[in-house]
């Protein structure tokens, strides 16, 4: 018994990720935490997407189940689990059964290397970003097999579109990523890194987020990635594989019930995964904003109060809406429910002000906040952009993003090579 407690506690004093420390217990705990957190994020994302889209289109969105439709995702999940699970008679049973699992596995496995903080990651791999791109590219296999196994026209066309799209945008995406890896090697030793934690530490060491590095080169790379990642996750305006006006629902037309919900889960966690790649590579991962302009212990303190303040703000929003609830007796339960929810959020906010907690969650908060901004962008795109035509999509991928990425890579390497000589020369001249 004693050795078990020692084993568990031995990790707490080490300053590593559980994977690097080789501690099975904490690795399992982290895996479970990430899994639960991801599931909650997907549920929240479901609600937020419907609500925000509705408000963008001057509608109310879900309002009936729970106060402001807060319990709608739970009701939806229950409905999906209880729905009859249909396998089409002419479908290829085994492949039909395997396909959703490939997609979900690919979408969840990438979170092994996502760095929520310098020590808050399941593990830190030497091949971090390569692993993420590789495993997330496996999800296209699931989509293709799902479309084929359904043995029906719409899913097959959807699957062919999606495989063509994902394979072609992967190229531009890879070039943008390589330009960042070139940037990481600009240190005294001249060694770059592919590790996710290493990339963020390189940004810390160079005192800049890579999106601002060699302005505007970093920004262009970020833009290429931001376009390619929307195409990779098959979201609007690149949602041709599931264009409902042409293909009903694309590759998952024949799926229903639990299997369909697996596709749903995979789509949203893949969105979170690519957003966290973008945050890690260009937006400084877990680093807080303005580390140079607003530095010093006072600003550190101010920024460490942000997580608590964010939750307090959410709680205050809940209270505001509780006060605005109709006073009719039928709304009594909903009013109490919303008030309780607000109270819980405010309590979480207060807990986050306690100094030991504050120090440990700061990095997770900034990472999640940046990812959340990307999630909002996804919803925003869906609410505003019209869908591309397929030939336009291919044109953008191969004729615009790919050449830009190639030129960008060469320019970035050149800029990295010339940075020091030019500085020297400037010093000499001035």
């Amino acid at each position, binding site marked *: 018994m004693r050795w078990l407690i020692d084993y568990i506690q031995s990790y707490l004093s080490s300053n590593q990720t559980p994977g690097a420390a080789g501690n099975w217990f904490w690795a399992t705990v982290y895996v479970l935490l990430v899994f639960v957190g991801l599931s909650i994020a997907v549920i929240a994302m479901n609600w937020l997407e419907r609500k925000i889209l509705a408000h963008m289109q001057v509608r109310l969105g879900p309002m009936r189940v729970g106060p402001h439709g807060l319990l709608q995702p739970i009701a939806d999940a229950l409905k999906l689990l209880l729905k009859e699970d249909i396998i089409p008679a002419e479908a290829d049973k085994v492949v039909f059964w395997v396909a959703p699992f490939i997609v979900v596995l690919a979408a969840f496995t990438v979170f092994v290397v996502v760095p929520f903080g310098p020590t808050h990651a399941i593990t830190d791999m030497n091949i971090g970003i*390569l692993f993420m791109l*590789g495993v997330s590219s496996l999800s*296209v296999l699931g989509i293709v097999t799902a479309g084929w196994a359904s043995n029906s026209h719409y899913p097959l066309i959807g699957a062919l579109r999606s495989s*063509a799209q994902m394979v072609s945008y992967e190229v531009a995406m890879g070039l943008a990523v390589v330009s960042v890896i070139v940037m990481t090697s600009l240190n005294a030793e001249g060694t770059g890194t592919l590790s996710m934690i290493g990339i963020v530490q390189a940004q810390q060491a160079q005192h800049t987020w890579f999106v601002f590095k060699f302005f505007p080169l970093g920004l262009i790379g970020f833009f290429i990635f931001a376009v390619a990642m929307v195409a990779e996750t098959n979201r609007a305006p690149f949602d041709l594989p599931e264009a409902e006006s042409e293909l009903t629902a694309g590759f998952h037309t024949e799926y229903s019930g639990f299997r369909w919900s697996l596709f749903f889960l995979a789509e949203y966690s893949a969105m979170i995964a690519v957003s966290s790649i973008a945050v890690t590579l260009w937006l400084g991962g877990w680093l807080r904003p303005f580390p140079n302009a607003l530095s010093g212990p006072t600003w550190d303190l101010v920024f460490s109060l942000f997580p608590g303040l964010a939750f307090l703000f959410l709680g205050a929003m809940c209270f505001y809406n509780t006060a605005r609830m109709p006073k009719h007796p039928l709304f009594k339960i909903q009013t109490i429910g919303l008030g309780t929810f607000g109270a819980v959020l405010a309590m979480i906010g207060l807990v986050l002000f306690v100094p030991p907690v504050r120090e440990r969650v700061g990095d997770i908060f900034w990472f999640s906040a940046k990812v959340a901004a990307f999630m909002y962008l996804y919803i925003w795109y869906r609410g505003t952009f019209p869908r591309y035509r397929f030939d336009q999509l291919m044109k953008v991928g191969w004729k615009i993003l790919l050449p830009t990425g190639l030129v960008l890579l060469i320019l970035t390497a050149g800029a990295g090579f010339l940075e020091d000589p030019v500085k020297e020369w400037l010093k000499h001249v001035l």
Partner: protein
Amino acid sequence: MIVGGIVVITSKNAVHSAMALISALLAQSGIYLMLYAPFVAGVQIILYAGGIMVLFLFVIMLISIERTAKERQFNKQWLVGIAAAAALGGLFIAVYTKGKSLFPEGRVTYGEGQNIQDVAALLYDQHQGMYMFSFEIASLLLLVAIIGAVVMAKKRI
């Protein structure tokens, strides 16, 4: 990996074969991981499992599955095939039993955390980079393949 390989050649359905091939390739990348070569493992996943197999499936799906499933799958070269397989198997057994005397003692272990940097040093380093030339030759080969594909696809350039 072996199970995957067996399913590849025994399955009548081309898509099932392709999926078994994917699992075999993934298992192979697992073997690379066990040999402390994470970079090769990652590249294996991206290139073979992610890229090439998608194109495989893409092509297979455009063929009529019903017609191919009915065709006879075994060709007339089974005698040569068995001979080749027996030779390869004999080689494996010989390596397994006499491997200690055939190969230099001891296994080179690389640090897991430095794999990519080691690969890069072998390729490009000024002092120990000895594979630069072969790397360039390999990329030239790929360039020839790309140009060949373009020439074949386009009637008039």
